[in-house]
């Protein structure tokens, strides 16, 4: 018996030692390198709560990450106003409604030294299309013809947003014929190339010295994934991380008050907190109720107080900073008394004295669904519920992990979600999917024939000025209808150590590390 117990203890100890031993030997990862480099600070350390599932830009939404990591680039790039500007391409011109001629830069090389030509772009897109159906829903490619640095693309239909779509990271270019596994070491045209990568873990990149935009200032960078937002903030506070992405609004104050040590930079993007209203609900069908709901939202306070400045209020629907934004249009102002009056006009009264307005014996009682992964959404919904109570509307908030099922089934009266409204800077995308009667994301079945007709015009209009004007008209009509509510647009916020310089914040979520970023010694 004694022997058996000794053997058992010995076995336990061996497993223990084996376990710790393995850990010690397996620990030489990119993180170590970053720590070793800390003294010289030639490599920057970035931390984020999110990560790609591989480095293959064709898979799922990984291209957004490879673009942020400075590995892959696109033919066009969005500027500060989300306008697409030539980048790897010199120009893109429309020959006819379905033919585009793209002239590529002559000085771009892949990170293996191979030249980027029209043929390499064609091969890359062919591969991406085969793997990810989303590319074809961006560019609608029918056929491609490569000739030197000129790529002629025929589309299956007229695509007015073709040029802006060329800035979507999924259209990014890699050398598909390069050696090695694309999922681990894609060969892009960006300023940084991957050196080591752990799936859903640490990525280390180093500068590509022959980068067409000039040698990157930073020697390399390490990207860490810290899934817990509190731990992410602590990594920034402890100085282990030079830049943190996705720090929650509640933690920003920590860094904002110490501006000698940290630099908090953020710019509003097109990710809106959008409220979808379900037109199957009899109360929602009444414009008095819809307008009263809109009037009970104090967008300024939502953005500045509840969300601690991590978002900006929306005047109408699209972001105010964009050419087609709603800052110069008529908007629905926050006015609780006005909302009460409006409901009175609509024939609503509290006939049973329960504090909730009713009509034809039915209380205005609504269900609002949202999800918890965007921390601001449940807070906004709770605030809405409290304000609506003041004007006599009962709003029950339901918070889920995901509202995908409710989107499909329509099982909601109001739904607040976070939606990137103009991912490539083009207004047509969100108008098509959300505002149009048969739009694929028109979850609440909003329908206005005038709006539909304007969206049809927008879909075939190539002139940018006219597109802007059409978008403004669409937006105004929806606001007049109180058909949709956009509470505000989130800022894409970085918290940086004060020594990290050269990083330009962009309203798009596509960019982060580029050749201009450096660490000041």
């Amino acid at each position, binding site marked *: *018996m004694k022997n*058996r117990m000794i053997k*058992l203890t010995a076995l*336990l100890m061996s*497993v*223990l030692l084996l*376990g*710790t031993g*393995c*850990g*010690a030997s*397996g*620990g030489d*990862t990119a*993180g*170590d390198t*970053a*720590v070793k480099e800390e003294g010289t600070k030639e490599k920057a*350390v970035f931390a984020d709560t999110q990560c790609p*599932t*591989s480095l293959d830009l064709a898979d*799922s*939404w990984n291209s*957004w990450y490879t673009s942020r990591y400075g590995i892959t680039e696109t033919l066009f790039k969005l500027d500060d106003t989300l306008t697409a500007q030539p980048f790897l391409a010199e120009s893109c011109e429309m020959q006819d409604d379905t033919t585009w001629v793209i002239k590529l830069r002559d000085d771009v090389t892949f990170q293996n030294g191979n030249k980027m030509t029209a043929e390499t772009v064609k091969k890359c897109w062919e591969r991406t299309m085969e793997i*990810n*159906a*989303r590319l*074809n*829903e961006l560019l609608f490619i029918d056929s491609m013809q490569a000739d030197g640095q000129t790529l002629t693309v025929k589309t299956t239909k007229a695509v007015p947003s073709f040029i802006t779509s060329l800035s979507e990271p999924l259209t990014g270019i890699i050398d598909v014929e390069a050696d090695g596994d694309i*999922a681990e070491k894609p060969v892009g045209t960006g300023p940084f190339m991957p050196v080591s990568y*752990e*799936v859903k*873990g640490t990525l280390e990149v180093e500068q590509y010295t022959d980068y067409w935009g000039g040698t990157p200032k930073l020697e390399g960078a390490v990207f*860490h*994934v*810290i*899934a*817990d937002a*509190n*731990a992410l903030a*602590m*990594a920034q506070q*402890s100085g*282990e991380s030079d830049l943190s992405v996705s720090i929650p609004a509640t933690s920003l104050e920590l860094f904002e008050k110490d501006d000698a040590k940290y630099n908090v930079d953020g710019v509003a993007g097109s990710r809106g907190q959008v409220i979808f209203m379900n037109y199957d609900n009899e109360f929602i069908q009444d414009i008095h109720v819809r307008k009263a709901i809109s009037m009970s939202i104090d967008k300024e306070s939502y953005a500045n107080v509840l969300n601690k400045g991590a978002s900006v209020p929306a005047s109408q629907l699209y972001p105010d900073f964009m050419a087609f934004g709603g800052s110069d249009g008529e908007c629905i102002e926050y006015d609780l008394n006005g909302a009460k009056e409006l409901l009175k006009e609509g024939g609503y009264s509290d006939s049973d004295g329960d504090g909730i307005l009713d009509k034809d014996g039915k209380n205005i009682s609504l269900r609002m669904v949202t*999800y918890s992964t965007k921390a601001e959404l449940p807070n906004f919904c709770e605030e809405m519920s409290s304000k609506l109570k003041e004007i006599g509307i009962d709003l029950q908030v339901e918070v889920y992990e*995901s*509202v*995908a*099922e409710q*989107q*499909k089934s329509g099982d909601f009266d109001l739904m607040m*979600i*976070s*939606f*990137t409204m103009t991912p490539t800077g083009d207004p047509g995308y969100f108008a098509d*999917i959300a505002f149009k009667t048969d*739009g*694929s*994301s028109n*979850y609440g079945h909003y329908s206005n024939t005038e709006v539909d007709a304007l969206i049809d015009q927008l879909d075939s209009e190539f002139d940018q000025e006219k597109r802007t004007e059409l978008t403004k008209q669409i937006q105004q009509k929806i606001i007049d209808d109180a058909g949709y509510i956009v509470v505000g647009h989130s800022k894409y916020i970085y918290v940086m150590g004060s020594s990290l310089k050269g990083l330009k914040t962009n309203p798009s979520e596509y960019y982060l590390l580029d050749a201009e970023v450096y660490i000041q010694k």
Partner: protein
Amino acid sequence: MKKRNRVIKKIFSSLLQSLIVLIGITFISFLILHLSPGNPAEIWLTGGDGNVGQISQEAVKAQEEKMGLDKPFLIQYGMWLKKVCYGDLGESFTTGQPVVSELQRRVMPTIMIAFVSLFLTMLISVPLGIGCAVYKDRWLDNMIRSVSFLGISLPTFFTSLVLLWLFCLKLSIFPVIADTDVKGMVLPVAVFVIQCSSRLTRQVRAVILEQLNQEYVKGAVARGVKKSRILFSHVLKNAMIPVLTWVSIYLGILLGGAAVVETIFSWDGLGKLAVESVARLDYFVIQGFVLWVALIFLALNFLVDVICSMIDPRIKQD
């Protein structure tokens, strides 16, 4: 000969039972996954952002076909089961990697933490539990009971964040961004040890107290047997069986990974993998994880049965 046949029959029947349990568990989990809201093909295409509308139904259907989700549920399960028989657990929807290699990568960090935590837990809890029982209602007992009550009450996420704040931020002893090595293991192990030892100490105390009130102890005391001899030769031996059962349960839980602690400490273990996979409805990775946990509990059950029968031959006869 008769005894040998009986042993073979018993082993055979145990294996059959285990097989039925494994098939049952994996079938139920596969069913739950299929009944749960969301579609892995849509998640793959939309990045799980809920913006399903921007992808056409044709694209979703094509993706479902690629993932094999277009087939009826039972066919999908049957195909998975057939692959499992050949040691292939399928491929992850999100990374495209074989599930076996995904699990292999994450199992070792979890095993390391589990065994170290359990070893330290036993090292702390058994002597403290005995001490509390022997000195029942004295200052030692009262103090340990209060501390263990606190340990049980504190949620793991809170303990983890406090340790992270104290040791990484204030004292700078450990890095926040730790590697999967010994240094990175210290804080997550500390969290587990605080949690498990708080529980086990109370459990050991209770079982020792129960034994101390048994007739055989009173008889031994009456016969003038030394108190230490009664405790270490009789009471401990009898208390070992329930303690071993609890330890095996803790080990099973720890080997299944702990998502919250692993996420906070960026420890790439099985718990974190399971949560990531559930978020993206990565069916085959979740199935692989369920299979692993089921196997661990079956193996531990078997092991505990064997050890208990060594300690107490009456169990063997049963």
